Each structure stands twice: as C-alpha cells, then as structure tokens.
C-alpha cells in the first residue's frame, strides 16, 4: 500500500541575506566584492570573479579539487565562506606561473604526465605548493600520505608523486618494498 511522505522543510523565515563588502587579494591583485555571506570562497572565485581554474568537485571538502592557498596555506575553498577571508591573500592556480615561465610544479606535472582529464590538477598543484610550504616531507611515502586530500579519479597518483618528488628532491622511503 502506498504511504504518504511529506518533505517537512521549514517555511523561509527571512529574505535572502544582503550582500556585504569583501576585500580579497588574489594572485597579488586587489579585488573588492559585494557578496552575500552564504557565498563560499570557491563560488566567489568561480562565479563572481571568473577564476575558474579553481575547481568544484564535491562542495563538501571531500575531494580537494578546490584547493587554493590562503596566506600560503592550502585550504579547501568550498569549506570557507568568502566573508571569512576578508583581507586575506589568496593564490589560485592562475597565479602560480610567472608570465610564460611555469611554476616548477606546473612544469613537473606536464613532464611527468601527472594528470589526465586535468580537473583535479589545479587543486593538486596548489596542494603541492602548500605541502612544500609545510616542509614536512621526508620521503615519497610522505608525499603519498600528505597529498591524499586531493583525489585524482583518473588515477595519476604515481605520476603526481614523481612530479612532486622531483621538485622537492624527495627520496623514496628506505624500507621501500617497491621493486
């Protein structure tokens, strides 16, 4: 027998939130934005400022495609509201190259074919820069572990590790079981 199910959503209690002013420095350039407080940093970049290099893969902080650098630290921009970063210094994938000269990680990713579809790549590369800033990597096993917040569904992981290891000059672990 059919039984009745109702979606019990609350009635709206308030009008949509009004926009507020947010100042961001993105890739060295100042930007003034008027965005509602419910706009994530990721959507502010992609939909309001046309920095579409930063990707949305899950919107829940589960995949890492949206990784950007905020004051040099890697974060998931989908888990951060733009208003929370008022005054922050943000670096996206568009800001890593110096004119025609690619950032060493960008070049290493091309050289090692560390991507296929390319959708996770900006997040991987920004994450690698953050990883370098953290200074914790001693062996390639550390790269594997500390890059595990960035999913690559194409499965380019071995090449990603090689690319990052080349830039960081990272040795394999001593106890490596690899043939």
């Amino acid at each position, binding site marked *: 027998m*059919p*039984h*009745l*199910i*109702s*979606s019990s*959503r609350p*009635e709206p209690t308030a*009008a*949509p939130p009004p926009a507020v002013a947010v100042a961001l420095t993105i890739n060295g350039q100042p930007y003034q934005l008027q965005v*509602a407080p*419910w706009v994530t940093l990721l*959507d502010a970049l992609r939909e309001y400022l046309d920095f*579409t*290099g930063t*990707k*949305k*893969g*899950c*919107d*829940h902080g*589960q*995949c890492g*495609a949206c990784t950007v650098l905020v004051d040099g630290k890697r974060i998931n921009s989908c888990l951060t509201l733009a208003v929370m970063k008022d005054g922050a210094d943000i670096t996206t*994938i*568009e800001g*890593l*190259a110096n004119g025609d000269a690619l950032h060493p990680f*960008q070049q290493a*990713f*091309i*050289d*090692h*074919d560390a*991507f*296929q*579809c*390319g*959708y*996770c*790549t900006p997040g991987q*590369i920004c994450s690698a820069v953050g990883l370098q800033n953290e200074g914790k990597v001693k062996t390639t096993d550390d*790269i*594997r*572990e500390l*890059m*595990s917040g*960035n*999913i*690559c*569904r*194409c*499965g380019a*992981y*071995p*090449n990603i*590790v090689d690319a990052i290891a080349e830039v960081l000059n990272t040795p394999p672990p001593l106890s490596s*079981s*690899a*043939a």
Partner: protein
Amino acid sequence: MTSSSYISATDKTRKQVGQPASRVDGRLKVTGQAKYAGEFNVPDLLYGVVVSSAIAKGKITTLDPSAALSLPGVVQVFSHENRPSLPWFDRSYRDDDTPPGSPFRPLYDAEIKFSQQPIALVVAHTFELARYAASLVRVEYAAETPDVELSSKWKDEYKAPTGKIGYEKPPKPRGKPKEAMAAAPVKVDAEYTHAAEHHNPMELFTTTVEWLGDGQKLNIFDKTQGVINSQTYVTRVFGLSKEEAHVVSPFMGGGFGSGLRPQYQLFLSVLAALELKRSVRVTLTRQQMFSFGHRPATIQQIALGAAEDGTLQAVRHDALAETSQFEDYTEVVVNWSGSMYQCDNVELRHFLGKLDVYTPLDMRAPGGVTGMIALESAVDELCARLGMDPIEFRLKNYAERDQNKDLPFSSKELRACYRQGAEKFGWAHRSPEPRSMRRGTTLIGWGMATGVWDAQQAIASAKATLSALGQLVVSSATSDIGTGTYTIMTQLAADALGLPMEAVRFQLGDTSLPAAPFEGGSLTAATVGTAVKNVCDAVAKQVFKLAQKIDNSPLKGADFDDVEFVGGRIQLRRDTTQSVGLTEAMAQGNGEPIEETSTAIPNLLKQLQYARNSHSAIFVEVEVDEDYGTIRVTRAVSAIAGGRILNPKTARSQILGAVVWGISMALHEESLLDLSFGRFMNHNLSEYHVAVNADIPPIEVIFVEENDSIVNPLGVKGLGEVGIVGVAAAVGNAVYHATGRRVRHFPITLDKLL
C-alpha cells in the same frame, strides 16, 4: 619516467608517433586555463538547482513551489506541472548509448521510478539562492516500497530480448558441459559478487546553455563524452535544428562512461533556457551524481572443471546483473569465460534483474571487469586445488582461437605479457603456499590475473586545413576525456605532413566539426586516428601536386608513393637531397590554404574474419596485517598487448589509471543500496571510497610488442579499458595468497578478513 624534452627542436626529422610527447593541452590544464562545461561564464547567466525525489517509487501528490517562488530573485520552478509540451514517443528520448526500453523523461509526469529522480528545477539569479529555494519546494508523495533486492531475481531467469549497442548474447552451449563438469576430477564452483559502483568523475555534471537571442539558437557547453550525442538528444527532445543546438565540450573533467548518455542536467538546462529565453547553468551535486547510471551490481556463479594435469575441461558461468524497470541495460559479462581459455565444454548464461533503480551505464570496461573477476578468481582457486602455478595453467590452456566466434585472433601477444610481466615482477620467487611469505609482522601475497578487451574501430570524419605558411589545423567532433586525444591526433597529423607538433593544432568537442562517435569503448585512437591520418594524407597529396608544379621541381615525374614528408619538406625517398619545402609548394597555390575532409570507414570484410582483442597480464603484491585485516597493495606490474603505441607517455598514464581503478574496485568501491528506501546511502566522496594517493603503490607498465594489420590501418587497439580488466581478481588472488582466505564479495574490505 624522466622529463620533457624527448622532442628536441633541432631534431626536425624525428617522427612524432611513438614518441612520449607531453600533452599538447598540458599547459592549459596546469595553469587553470582549460575551460570545462561549467566555466563558460556567459553574460546574464541564471542558475538552476535540481530538486531530487525523496522516494524511490510512487507518485508525487503535491509539488508546491510557492515558498521558493516568493523569494525575490527566484525566476521559475519547473516541474511536471508546468513543463512545456514534450514528445510522446520513446524514440525522441533515445541517444547513441540507450539500451532497449523506455528512456527516462525528466519532469514528464508525477511518477517516481528511482531514488533522487529529478522532480523540479529551481532557477534563480544566483546559485546560492537557487539552492536555498530548492530546499523550500514542498513535495508530498504517495510512496510505494521499492524492489531493489537483486539476489531475489535469479528465479525470474529474465534474459534481455535484445541488447544495447555492443552487446553480444552469450554463445550457445558447446560440447557437453554438464557431463564434462561431472566427470572433471578437479572442480571449483563458487559465487562472486560485486556491489554497484559509481563513476564519480571529478567534475560535477554541468551544462551551461547560452541563449544567443537569435531565434532559438543555443550554445550548449555540456559535460559529455560525445557532443554529437548530446546534440542529437536535444534536437529530438526539443525539436531544435542542429544549427540551433550547437554543443561544445573542449575539455571534460573525467568520464569513464558516465558521459556516454546525456544526463538530465542537459535536458533541464536546455528546457529552462528555451522557456525563459535566458542563459542557464545547471550543475548537479556530488550526491545527485549517484542518481544516474552506474556499474550494475552483479552476482556470478561460476564453475570450472579440470583434469589432474590442469587441462580445462568444462566451464559454466552464470551472471545476474541489475537493470532498471524501464530499460534493459546489458553488458558482456560471461562471454569472456568462453573465449579466454581453450575449452570444449562451455555453458554461459546472462540474466537481468529488474529493480527500482536508475538504469546502469557503461563504466570503464563494462562487463569485462565484471566477468573477469569471476573467471580469473575461479582460475586461481582451481590452480590452488591443482597445485599448479597460475601462469603455467594459463599457458597450458592458452586459447589460440576465439572459440565463441570460432575465429582466429587478429593478433594476441598475451604470452609475452605473462612472460615479461612475470619477469619484471619476480614471479619466479613466489612461494606457492598461502601464508608462506611475510615481511616483519605482515603477510605478503602475490597474485596475478589476465585482462582482455575489445579492439574496435567505428566510423569517423575529420577535416584538415594547411595554410600557405605551413600551419596545419585538423578537427573532428571527438572528445578528450583525459585520454590524450588532442596529443595523439596532433602527433599523427604532424607525421603525415612532416611538420613539428607546434605547427599543428587539433580541434575537437564541437558539433560544427566533422562527425565522430562519442569517446567510449576504447575506440577513439583507432577510429578518429584513422580519419586524421587519411585526411592529412589527402592534404599531403595536394601539396605534392603543388610541389611538382614548381619550375624544375626535383619531384617532377615522381609518384606520391616515391616521396616522404620530413622536417617541413617533401623529399624523394631514394634521394633525400632532392626535396621541396612545404611552404615553397604552398606558394604555388597563390596563398590559398588546402582543405580536405574525409571519412574513415572500417574494413569490416577483413576485420570480421578475426576476433580482435587487446590483452594484459597484471601482477600485484599485497601486505595484509594479520591482526587488523588491513590490506595494502605495495606494488603492481601491468603488461599490456595493445597493438601499436602512439604515445608511450599518455599510453602509460591510461594503464596506470586503469590499474588504480582496479585496485580501487578490489578494495574500496561500493555503492551501498538501502533495501528499504532504494537509495544509495553513501552518496558522497567521503563514504563512497575511491583510491587516494596513499592507497596507490608504484606501478610498472610494460607494453609488449604487438603488430596487427587487421584491427585498423594504424594497428592500434585502444588502451582506455584493458588495463582495469583482471586487476580486482589479481588483488583478490594476492589476498588469498597472503592469508589463505578467499574473499568472493568485492570490495575486499578488512571486515571480511577478520
């Protein structure tokens, strides 16, 4: 692999095909400039957010959008109650990958056929507002209990009357399978299952429709593996002309089969754009991406019988795979068990179980991955009973012909895969007994399996334009879903005219280009590659004619076959000092470019006389913690017989990725269906586990030499899928070798070892 400069600028005579060239689109991808479907930020864009059904079966009794519509900035809520008139007949909703049946029609009526079915589209000025408003749409349902229990469907013995494209029904039984099985002294009879899996490409499914304000003309930026498939669908459903429905998709953030059928964000965004006469973008959430096609959960019962010496005497293989109530999704699951090994007594059956779920969809090596889990695991079980080395068994029962089709193979270098893979892996050092290898406190297991896939060629067209300055533009409406299409087509085109890759630009992903099939079935290199080669050869012939017109041309009197195109010049093969520069020749054409279009059609008369397959041998090592049951793959070797390799760098990446997929399937991936509510419970990337970096060890890829003049003029076999087939079985076999426990229900999670 060492870095970049394989192609030195000074070595202009080097052929590009066969070189490990870096991707031509690499720079765009690492700088964030590559634009995906949801990144065409056209002016005055509206955002659509989908409301998904809370139930899996039943009817919508009330759909009240008033609260959503009351918000300033919400433009419209589309549902079955206010949708425009839509076609009546199923044929209008079919696409190039539609299984037999009645395709799902979004917003058609109040009936709910599967969980998370799209039931409304809320369109607003911002994404955030649309998302909020979508939460305010009040829906009431008359719910029925969904039927989603696959194992209850064996009794129906339902076989699809017809299959979808690419499906081959299991061959009729051969020999005397029952008698042979009964008589076989050594037997295995086991049931293998794997859960449903979802493709989960990184990019969310998105369509941006640009309203051009000129009649009904639309630019449709769609996440798809085939722009023409999307265009065909949209023109049929909405009555648009091809000119009105211009579909563009230069980059796709992962497909793996999920983009072979137009997904409902395409339908909804086009509907909204046409109704509102505005540009609209609809992006699905990760959760909503569990509401459409997936690799079907499959239950397999397989029995193998062998003589004491390891001769395979009988094979029986039954599969029961899920499909929806409205379409019969079919994949080739059991047939592989009749063609992989020499065996004269074989019985294969493939059944479907119709459930209240969305129709499954091709997912990387559909059917092959599934069937070979059962076959290659069962072979390992048989080898354990025989006390026989798994490679020795496979060589003893090596199939020299495809017995299903009774045809010879066009080429089959699988023996070389076994040999070279085993050597690289160090298989000879394997101690055969389970639990006999340890490293410290962990158990070590070594397992292997075979992989196989089809080598197909379809029809495709391409266009090539050579400018007076020697710049070549080649195009075809194919895709590059990460496979390297842009790069290998550039290499093929460059060689045809003796140009450096920098002088060649390849365009794809646009319905205004010459037709090509969607990128699926590992056929793009063969199909589009042949078209590109042909059309560039046609241009070369025209240039050659111009070169002969030059006064005192050293090529006068020569035939086209007497010359070669090398380093920007046309030279006589027998005396390479006699040559004409390409731009010199083009100068004879008064600055006019040369343009050619051609269509490459497979030589079926030749091809159909052979079974055409790629093969692989996969070897893996696992470490299993005896106390905790944790499993890690610590290394893997994949040896591939895939015909000619156009680009060893991108080819290796395809195989690497496929092995990662296989490991992920073996140990992580399962979409868990709630049997009461008919919904995939773990519908996000936190709970649907895919392999992450730390899960993946170093992987060695070997391409064995394989020459094939039958499969297509290029001798390529396609590499997108063969690398995943067999991997999950190899991992399972390694886990058995490590622990002595045979886990037959994939994925092999630690709880199954405790």
